[in-house]
């Protein structure tokens, strides 16, 4: 494993498999236990540096670190911890002085974790940067797929929605490809990046044509603001062409699953009855997020591999 986890490409197939295996072992080791805590990272300090509100991701990382007995410090740009106007570099130097062993960073600017990695000695874990990547989300998604379908290799995955602005999509395309899955991106052409042709994924504009041929459909959150910038004409038209409703869910193969990184826009990209159906893995994804992130923290902080 590399020292930092900044993007899916930091993990080769062996690394990615190791993370998933480790998460599975952690899950198994903790299953049914009253004491959900392991002493592994006692004395290590994990800083959650969140420049963007994301309670669910922050809590997931916080729980992961605490279950491994690390000391957790939450730095929130929204609160008072990161003072106004302090640069990312100054903050990095502060964290460095505090002896952070890992910095989990969420930032609205693509590449901010890469910058941070230049300035701190500890491991940097990207918890979502701008429209770039969110590698632990991809890991927990792959973990969820493997848990439900028994494998990732050869699994056909459709990623549907605002690919252009989605860090989840970027990380998933990279990681799923690394793990041997076949990815199809489905979106209106306006919500696909110009360079998407260079990605290891098929591209389709037609959700109905893709659904019968996939094992996993991963719905991306679509923000209504995109409507105002003419990425699509209206929420209603978007939902009609690219939303996953009960009728479309019926077109999926029998054991296909429906995923969503959350938070969902029920009624926009996903209908409530789909989100709440047995095919939906949305709740598992949240639980799997904790064990996957424990695995990442353990593997990054545990020390140099043998």
């Amino acid at each position: 494993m590399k020292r930092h986890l900044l993007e899916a490409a930091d993990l080769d197939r062996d690394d990615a498999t190791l993370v998933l295996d480790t998460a599975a072992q952690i899950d198994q080791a903790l299953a049914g236990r009253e004491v959900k805590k392991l002493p592994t990272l006692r004395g290590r300090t994990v800083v959650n540096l969140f420049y963007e509100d994301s309670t669910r991701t922050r809590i997931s990382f916080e729980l992961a670190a605490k279950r491994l007995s690390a000391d957790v410090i939450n730095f929130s740009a929204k609160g008072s911890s990161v003072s106004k106007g302090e640069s990312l570099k100054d903050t990095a130097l502060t964290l460095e002085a505090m002896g952070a062993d890992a910095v989990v960073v969420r930032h609205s600017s693509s590449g901010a974790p890469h910058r941070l990695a230049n300035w701190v000695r500890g491991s940097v874990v990207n918890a979502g940067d701008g429209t770039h990547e969110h590698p632990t989300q991809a890991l927990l998604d792959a973990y969820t797929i493997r848990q439900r379908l028994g494998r990732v290799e050869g699994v056909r995955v459709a990623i549907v929605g605002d690919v252009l602005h989605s860090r989840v999509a970027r990380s998933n395309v990279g990681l799923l490809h690394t793990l041997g899955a076949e990815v199809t991106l489905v979106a209106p052409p306006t919500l696909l990046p110009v360079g998407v042709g260079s990605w290891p994924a098929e591209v389709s504009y037609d959700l109905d044509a893709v659904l019968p041929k996939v094992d996993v459909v991963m719905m991306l959150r679509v923000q209504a603001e995109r409507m105002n910038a003419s990425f699509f004409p209206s929420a209603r038209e978007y939902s009609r062409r690219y939303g996953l409703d009960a009728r479309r869910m019926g077109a999926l193969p029998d054991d296909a699953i429906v995923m969503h990184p959350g938070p969902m826009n029920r009624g926009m990209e996903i209908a409530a009855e789909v989100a709440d159906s047995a095919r939906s893995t949305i709740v598992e994804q949240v639980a799997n997020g904790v064990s996957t992130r424990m695995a990442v923290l353990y593997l990054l902080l545990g020390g140099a591999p043998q």
Partner: protein
Amino acid sequence: MTSYLIKGARPLGGDPVDIHITDGRISAIGNSLDATGAEVVEAAGLIALPGLVDLHTHLREPGREDAETVETGSRAAALGGFTAVHAMANTDPVADTAGVVEQVWRLGQEAGLVDVVPVGAVTVGLKGERLAELGAMADSAARVRVFSDDGHCVADPALMRRALEYVKAFDGVVAQHAEEPRLTVGAQMHEGDRSAKLGLTGWPAAAEEAIIARDVLLAEHVGARLHVCHVSTAGSVEILRWAKSRGVQVTAEVTPHHLLLTDACAESYDPVFKVNPPLRTDADVEALRAGLADGTIDAVGTDHAPHAVEDKESEWAQARPGMLGLEQALAVVIETMVEPGRLDWAGVADRMSVRPAAIGRLDGLGIRSQGRPIAPGEPANLVLVDPAARATVDPAALASRSRNSPYAGRELPGRIVATFLRGTATVLDGKATR
């Protein structure tokens, strides 16, 4: 005034000769000149070029003296072999009045290292709404001939047409920063495979090309001169070639960084590589080199854009666009054009001195002329280059007040040994004399 005898230099790469400088002019060129009392500059193996002229320099004064001043920028220019630079108008206050351009002009005179030629803003406050007092700036002591809202595009086609027409009255030229703003909202880098991967908002080539296409048609229609700043795409070169073939009075410049670097640099997310227009693809770089070689692109313009550390040591999106260029411009041209055999030294002189001086109308000003031939009687604006020397760029060693050089750590050819501005050595032995 010191008199100099430059011994054994090769003008435009030709045979070695001695060049005698007295009273600010070249007094004689020949072999074994006797110049009693002259300070001798040994120049065996060095190439002599006319002093370089930059059409596109950001000196940041007034307003951001923490990033650069007229004096520090002038020193960087002299060290880069320049004897004249056009100081862009996007200062604070904006150079949109006779008062501001005269202030910049005077600061340049006081520094005395290069001729600082102010560029006037096209529109008041660079806002793109109404014309600045172009005539007043033209008539001022600064004698402004180049007008530009650089940093911003004159996007309104009607306003652009009026500007092109209006400056004809004093033989001015509008230098357009070609960027359709509606196509580059939030843009961070070239739009293509790499922007898709890096999750940085794309700056499409079409946003530049659309404006250039529009503006050459306007220039043709009203019979005016148009200059295109920092051409960055293969498509732009095509459009310029087409326009020139139709006889449109259009000139264009390319930056050193667009000749050398590509959008691959963005993969580090190091904002030192963030620039506007952005670094493009290998194919664009190739087209730009070809365009500069065949003259479709007239000049190299540095777009020297100093930025304070805090404006660059940040997240990519928060960083300001721009990179240093003056001190390495000639080195990059040698690396990308001379060494591969695409431009000879006469070509370098043409693209970096003669043509930019002509575009800025600096070539017919008597003793204050720039971009003139190396010949007896001409103003002694000269640069001596050692083409064989190679050095690794160390930002800390630059004369600019800023450190945002995209060439840090890169080895480049061509050492500037000496620069003469009207007979005064501004650089000797590779060091600024003041």
